[in-house]
């Protein structure tokens, strides 16, 4: 079979418009890593089990290894690279740092983005809700306790920051 034609893909990634093209079989994860150099999109299992490649698609956390780049056409993507404002970390990133919630760091981008999705719709999460929201993200260092603490602390900080 001859190689299928490239398909135009137009996306907004971390606030920047990007017009490109992709072979249909290219996953969004590979597209972000290879075309845009966003290597914070980590590839672990490559079949939708580990959560390391999580990104936000129109604000909702999804696994970029089981989404085709061509399917993201017209969407807004946020990767871990797009969370910090210049030198100031996102409150969830800062909380991960403060609570030693990363060891090898491989799962961290996915964990942080899954937490962003959670805290947007659930500003007062219980520990059970945090664990449920992060259940699709595997930490092979098994550092879950501090990850849950960090998300809980970030939720509190974000609630306080929003008060006038």
């Amino acid at each position: 079979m001859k190689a299928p034609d490239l398909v135009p893909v137009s996306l907004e990634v971390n606030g920047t418009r990007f017009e490109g093209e992709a072979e249909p079989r290219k996953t969004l994860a590979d597209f972000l890593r290879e075309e845009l150099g966003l290597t914070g999109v980590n590839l672990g299992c490559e079949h939708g089990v580990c959560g390391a490649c999580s990104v936000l698609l129109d604000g909702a956390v999804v696994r970029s290894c089981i989404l085709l780049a061509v399917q993201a056409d017209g969407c807004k993507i946020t990767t871990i690279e797009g969370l910090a404002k210049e030198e100031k970390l996102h409150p969830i990133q800062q909380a991960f740092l403060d609570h030693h919630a990363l060891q090898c760091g491989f799962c961290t981008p996915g964990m942080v983005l899954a937490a962003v999705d959670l805290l947007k719709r659930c500003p007062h999460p219980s520990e059970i809700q945090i664990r449920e929201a992060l259940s699709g993200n595997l930490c092979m260092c098994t550092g879950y306790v501090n990850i849950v603490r960090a998300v809980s602390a970030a939720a509190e900080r974000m609630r306080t920051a929003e008060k006038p």
Partner: protein
Amino acid sequence: MKPAPFLYYRARSIEEALDLLTGTAANGKLLAGGQSLVPLLNLRLARPEALIDLNGIPGLSYIRSEANEIAIGALTRQREMEFSELLAKELPLLAEAIPQIGHPAIRNRGTLGGSLAHADPAAELPCALTALDARLVAVGPGGERAIRAEDFFTGFYATALADNEILKEVRIPLEKRAAGWSFVEFARRHGDFALAEVSVLLFADGGGRCASARVVAGGSVERPIRLTTVETLIQDEISPGAQASTLADVLKHAEHLAATEIQSSGASDYLCHLTGVLARRALESAIERWRKA
């Protein structure tokens, strides 16, 4: 872990998707949320010549209340169903099953129609919708037809959909309100595929007794099956005010019947036992809800 090459078509209407499916991309697979299909492509367990992407088709994502029915568009994301107030109010069984599908990231992309058409025996939606006696509306070159959920799932990853049909909508009847309901599953880890699952709906008569029950098992069998011996037992024996000792006896009997029914479908001893236990737990929980109401 990369898919083999395939041709990609973005359908803009059901008609266009049907044309592709019966013409240019006759050997193609339909792509909805992709949460089952893309892993299969990555693992190269599936190597379709072409994919027909349905995500660009407008008007296939909705949850509406219609005359004595709830209608849900096939492209509705599971996450939208999870947070739907209408479903929580009208179809609490479905509302209980949906958060048990995979993880939030999966439900953000996964669609109702995709899960049903894929027909994984371990999936939650086929089991719950069989209990709810849903009608699955398929559209093909000859027009539309409605298929009862019980007739839709025909085996492992197999459905009554013809090669040239597309699942368009699911309609769930509301004529009978369940007095008690429960969806219970067991997976080794949170969010994993269920080893076994059971849906229970109890319908009351005017006198506070069980007029009928629907009890459906999934996961441990190749497709959702109604546990008819359990349904008959419950219909004959259950009312929410039953003496606790009697109820415990009935539930024990139900556990045994469920395990025996699954055994005739060829499930392993462990899965028969597990299904029996889950049936008992689901019935307990459904009866508890009925009692509280």
